[in-house]
């Protein structure tokens, strides 16, 4: 029996936890701070609806100290909570391999401060929590995982985890170098997500309105230059991903636009902030990514610093 613990059992974490929970040879644990979600999972199981129809047994806890040692971890928190979550969950993985499936870059570095072996991961499936214990899967898709260079999990571990995820219904590829997949998604997200939040245009409109399409290309070009300086080979052209997204997700509101509508903190630091940071360390200028970073941080400040109802 392989024990896996999902850290951060929100929408994406639940997709992994529930699918893995259908396997006979995997025991799934989940660490999450949302008490009613955790209680519902323990009482009735974790249910997936939408693109999946799954009811799985998952052992959920709000206290990491109640979770037994696990061979594998899957970190799926929003990127701004990575440091706190992995610090609390670290004892679970004293001899484990932990994989990030989060947005952006920089999460693996934070995880590596607390656990012995780390995997770099990128995932496309998405969904949302519709009720405690219930997650609607909106998007299916692939996941790519590989050893994190600074503190690598073994390739054998990467392959075992990918195999379990795939058998559970989350198709996953084990790669010796998972940076290309991660940076391709990073660059795509950094170019489209914040522009959705800033302009309130849907994905399709962002792409067909010439001024924003040109701005997207400028932001993509900076990200591509940083990836090249890091020696990363992208696994596809982010420009093509942008065009594709306009077709298949015309009316989609970027997740950061949804964050903006709800006045929630965004993941901008792990997206454009990551490109700016890696660019600066490698001497690649990223003025447009930094502009977008500053505007979104300013927008977050506007939600918190002004009296309710003033606007």
């Amino acid at each position, binding site marked *: 029996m392989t024990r896996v613990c999902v850290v951060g059992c929100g929408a994406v974490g639940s997709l992994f936890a529930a699918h893995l929970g259908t396997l006979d040879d995997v025991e799934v644990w989940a660490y999450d701070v949302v008490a009613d979600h955790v209680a519902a999972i323990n009482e009735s199981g974790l249910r997936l609806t939408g693109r999946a129809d799954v009811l799985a047994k998952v052992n959920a806890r709000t206290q990491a100290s109640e979770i037994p040692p696990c061979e594998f971890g899957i970190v799926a928190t929003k990127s701004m909570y990575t440091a706190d979550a992995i610090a609390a969950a670290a004892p679970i993985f004293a001899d484990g391999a932990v994989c990030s499936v989060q947005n952006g870059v920089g999460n693996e570095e934070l995880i590596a401060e607390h656990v012995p072996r780390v995997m770099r991961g990128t995932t496309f499936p998405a969904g949302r929590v519709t009720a405690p214990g219930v997650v609607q899967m909106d998007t299916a898709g692939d996941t790519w995982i590989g050893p994190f260079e600074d503190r690598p999990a073994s390739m054998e571990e990467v392959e075992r985890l990918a195999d379990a995820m795939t058998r559970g219904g989350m198709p996953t590829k084990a790669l010796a170098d998972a940076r290309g997949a991660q940076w391709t998604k990073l660059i795509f997200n950094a170019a489209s997500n914040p522009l959705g939040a800033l302009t*309130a245009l*849907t994905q399709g*409109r962002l792409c067909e309105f010439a*001024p924003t399409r040109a701005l997207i290309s400028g932001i993509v070009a900076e990200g591509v230059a940083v990836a090249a300086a890091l020696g990363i080979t992208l696994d596809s052209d982010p420009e093509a991903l942008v065009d594709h997204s306009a077709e298949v997700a015309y009316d989609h509101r970027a997740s950061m636009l949804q964050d903006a509508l709800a006045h929630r903190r965004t993941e901008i630091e792990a997206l454009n902030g990551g490109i*700016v*940071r890696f660019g600066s360390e490698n001497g690649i200028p990223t003025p447009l990514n930094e*502009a977008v970073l*500053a*505007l979104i941080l300013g927008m977050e400040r506007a939600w918190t*610093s002004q009296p309710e109802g003033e606007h």
Partner: protein
Amino acid sequence: MIERVCVIGAGTIGSLLAAHLATVCEVSVLTRREEHAAMLREQGLRVSGKHELTASLHATADAAELGDFDVGIFACKALDLESSAARLAGRAPAATMMTVQNGLGAEDVVARHGQWPIISAVTFMSGIRHSDAHVEYELDTATWMGPWAQTKTPYSSVAELAELIISSGLEAEPMPDLLPAQWSKLIFNSAINTVAAMTMLPHVALFAKEDEFGDLGRLVHGLIDEGVAVAGAAGVTLHDDPWQMNVLAVARGETANSDYAHRPSMLEDVLTQRPTEVEFITGALVREAGRLGVPAPLSTAMYRLVRAREASWQLGSPSEAVLS
């Protein structure tokens, strides 16, 4: 001798000018809406805040009812200038006209509708419009004025009008060449207005903070540096360093307090989903940059973002919720 002034457009700036000038000369106001003119005729125009006064003045929404006048001041928004100037075509042939619009190009618009000598102006005063007949005088900063070179306006006309404005209680400064001041304000305005409009932040201290990646002041400084390079390529020596203007503005007592920070007009426009002046401000700057071959990627990005936000209102996107 200036005896009769016509103020075209009675928004915040037009109302402040008209009410003060009415204390020292005969003032008529040309409004867009007749009920606005009627209210001004009946109630007069009240100023509160830095000054307290109620001025009686002529007001009409029909340009044909305007008598002759010596000076016309176009105080409407840049977006309304073309239609306002067209309404004045053929009238007051001996008058001198002044433009106070944000951005570049206002003088050219007016010149297409008449042979009047033109005075260029930029104004730093600000106010809050409480109603059609009541405006609060907020920042008592100056209006800078200069002769527009293309119409060979004599400097003496500028000096005379500045003196009249000063005698009415407002601040004004005549200059032989306004371009250095006009460009200082253009560069300052382009950066502050677009950043405020996209972040929803009033002009707070964050606009001058540039310690770390993502600090808003770094973006504002980058935008200003681009504008300064464009001005340099255009042969303009700036009157003020726009970055210092920004630092001073956020350090002033009333704007350093985020509860009472100045909201740039483009932020007000975005909050109420009105068309902004981005074409005349950042659009003008980006076009000048293109003409002169100066790179302006950040200004271009801000111009595109504001245009996209405007487009979202037409498309029925959920922008109102973003702003709430």
